[in-house]
């Protein structure tokens, strides 16, 4: 269980003392309003944080510092949360007691705060950061499933779901002033700091109180529901041996809805288990694909069914997905029970995985709930068949996107 302390308005510190892991993990989560400009700035900022800082101005110096701390590591990434997105900065360092080094933890904290506060921003570092983001954007087009999902989402214009979380070509226009403004924004937006490990809590609190983060902050809205009129099928050609089909559903059940857990169980039975309706009937019985799954983007109120198929099977597979959705009405109770058990397993397993534990706690805190594995598991176990079927039946197919493999026919 995390212990939470509010340091300032919308600036929280969550800590979980644990001897389970050989290292200490710190995660700083900044909740930022979702605009393409903010995403692009965050992607560039994330690159700037990456391997240099004012006190370690070369990659070599930074690496030496990290190796001195027994492979201390840090990285940052973006995750969407409906109308906002989160820039997470993650630091990991071996616990001093494990390597019998009493100075290790203090050195690690100093290093971590040095990185957070000393981002090296100049013309050269900005150029390199922008180049890296643009290259990642280009590479996204080479990963067909990811690319198909991005193109499919982009059709729902003027919604947060449509925005490209990896950034887009306009990254090129970002200036030093934009980065300066973005670093000011980071001071103002809601920040949740997490720690899991054996660190002395007071040392961390002192460091946070002396940092640039120590001020009241504003929390932006997160969960939403995608509302869109159904769109006709769109096909885009790609020279590839495989065709990717994406069917998008508006869930009409938002993250705060009392039916949310029932919806998730239904979605797992529909398409997230190796015994799900989609997997059993489209892959196992008809050999039409290798992968097919339904994934829920909870904070946007979206469920996507994604599969890789042959180009001449688009119609037949699309119809079969619809049929399986209809078949949910008559789903076997044992499959619903499997879905419940897998969801509970995933919740309980989060205790063994630092990032899963933090993700689940953070998602709950965004809707003001206390995260408790036992009580959520109990709620899942108590769900009735009717509740699950009623929740999943609210889904509405609002579009179909095909990344059509041109050379596979």
């Amino acid at each position, binding site marked *: 269980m995390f212990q939470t302390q509010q340091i300032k308005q919308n600036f929280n510190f969550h800590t979980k003392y644990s001897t389970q892991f050989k290292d200490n993990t710190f995660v700083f989560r900044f909740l930022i309003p979702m605009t393409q400009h903010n995403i692009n700035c965050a992607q560039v900022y994330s690159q700037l944080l990456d391997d240099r800082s004012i006190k370690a101005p070369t990659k070599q110096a930074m690496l030496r510092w990290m190796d001195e701390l027994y492979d201390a590591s840090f990285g940052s990434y973006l995750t969407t949360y409906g109308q906002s997105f989160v820039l997470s900065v993650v630091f990991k360092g071996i616990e001093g007691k494990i390597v019998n080094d009493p100075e290790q933890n203090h050195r690690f904290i100093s290093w971590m705060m040095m990185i957070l506060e000393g981002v090296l921003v100049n013309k050269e570092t900005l150029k390199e950061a922008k180049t890296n983001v643009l290259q990642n954007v280009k590479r996204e087009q080479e990963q067909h499933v990811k690319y198909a999902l991005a193109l499919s989402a982009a059709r729902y214009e003027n919604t947060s779901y449509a925005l490209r979380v990896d950034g887009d070509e306009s990254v090129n226009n970002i200036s030093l002033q934009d980065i300066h403004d973005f670093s000011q924004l980071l001071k103002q937006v809601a920040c949740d700091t997490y720690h899991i490990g054996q660190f002395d809590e007071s040392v961390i609190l002192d460091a946070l109180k002396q940092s640039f983060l120590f001020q009241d902050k504003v929390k932006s809205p997160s969960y939403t529901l995608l509302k869109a009129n159904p769109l006709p099928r769109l096909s885009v050609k790609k*020279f590839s041996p495989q065709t990717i089909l994406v069917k998008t559903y508006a869930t009409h059940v938002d993250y705060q809805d009392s039916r949310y857990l029932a919806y998730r169980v239904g979605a797992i039975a529909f398409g997230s288990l190796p015994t799900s309706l989609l997997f059993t009937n489209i892959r196992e019985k008809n050999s039409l694909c290798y992968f097919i799954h339904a994934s829920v983007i909870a904070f946007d109120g979206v469920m996507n069914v994604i599969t890789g198929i042959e180009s001449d099977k688009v119609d037949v597979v699309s119809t079969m997905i619809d049929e399986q959705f209809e078949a949910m009405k008559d789903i076997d109770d044992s499959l619903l029970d499997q879905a419940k058990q897998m969801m509970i397993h995933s919740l309980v397993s989060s205790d063994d995985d630092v990032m899963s534990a933090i993700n689940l706690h953070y998602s709950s805190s965004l809707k003001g709930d206390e995260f408790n594995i036992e009580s959520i598991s109990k709620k899942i176990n108590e769900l009735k068949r009717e509740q699950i079927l009623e929740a999943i039946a609210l889904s509405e197919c609002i579009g179909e996107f095909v990344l059509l493999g041109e050379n596979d026919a």
Partner: protein
Amino acid sequence: MLKQLEKTHVFQTPSGMKVTILYKPDFKQQSMIVGVPFGGIHSNVYDEQHQLYKPGLAHFLEHKLFESESGDIMAQFSQLGAQVNAFTSYQETCYYFNTTTKFKEASNLLLDLVSECSLSEESVEKEKGIIISELSMYEAMVDQALVKNLYKSLYHHHPIIHDIGGSKQSVTEINLSQLMDAFHRFYHPSLMQCVCVTNESIESVEAMILAHPLSSKLKEKFSVKEEQITEPREVAFKDIDVSMDIEVAKGVYALKLDAHAGNPMSNVLKQFALRFLLEATFSELNPHYQQWLDEELINDYFDMDVDVSQNYSYIAFLCEHEHLDEVFNWIETTLQNVNLDEVTLNQLKRRYLGMSLKALNKPSSLSKQLIRYALNDLDFFDVLGLFQTMSMDDIEIAKQHILSSLSHASRVKITPQSK
């Protein structure tokens, strides 16, 4: 030091299966993994009719083993709240699950799964469509294409030139009799390794495994007859050029190293020494690295790979550039000056100690590492401690290994298809 941090128990069942139990009392997840030394490279094995196995046979068998006469085995695992899966690599096939409840029931189910194989012609035929779809998925991935062409460029005859999953043709040709032949030959308890990561007492887990028929049932053992591979020292192709629907050209520059049939531990040491040497020369440890980035010779895609195995060895560099030959020429020149000083060696030892400690944090991935080493007769914890013993002499040997292989280089280019 690392070994003292964890409690393990190793034993062998009367049927010959080797078992490692790692006790992790603080973790909720428990897992079991069972591995057999049968993977993608075993297409040089003869079946009963003295026909060579088809490429992709191990992977095909992995798919089919989930079929059981006693009902849907996937559903049985899900009902227990256990996530089950499998993978086939070049060297081995492994089956595993992880769970937070009913560990012993799920363990028995996994041991059942690898004990029996009952297939029909019809089900074998049905699986071909699924596997061919899987091959198409990999075919569309540029990174997979790089690896596939890397092996093709370096090796003339070695079975590593075949994809783990085989080709569309070889998959089509695989039949029930070859699948059953492979099962009887390789899925013998005496060839199997089993690793459990558990929060239950070691004694109770050992008793549970020993009570399973796989531990006691003595099965007939068939010999494994392999075609001898005579691999020339020279690379198969100095240049390979292919095109794909990608945005920026990508390539691999590789050196085919002299493959010594050393013992597994000395191969691991050699692999570490080569990796250290390349890290010191081609990563941020080198003060010139920033200049290479600024000159756009490399970007953040640039990466290195080292593999020292029993009968094949190579080092490879992955890069992304519009003019790949410029990068390849630079790699070739820089390789002539590979170097590592003692200060950097100690820095890397410290880094790898941290990395090894972190590897102990995730029981589910830890069990996969444990079994891979166990299948090669290596102790995971001994391997983790090995790099601490590395000396400048080991680095010098690795350096000479590279320098003597400079004339055995290949260049693979994957360029954007004209649209």
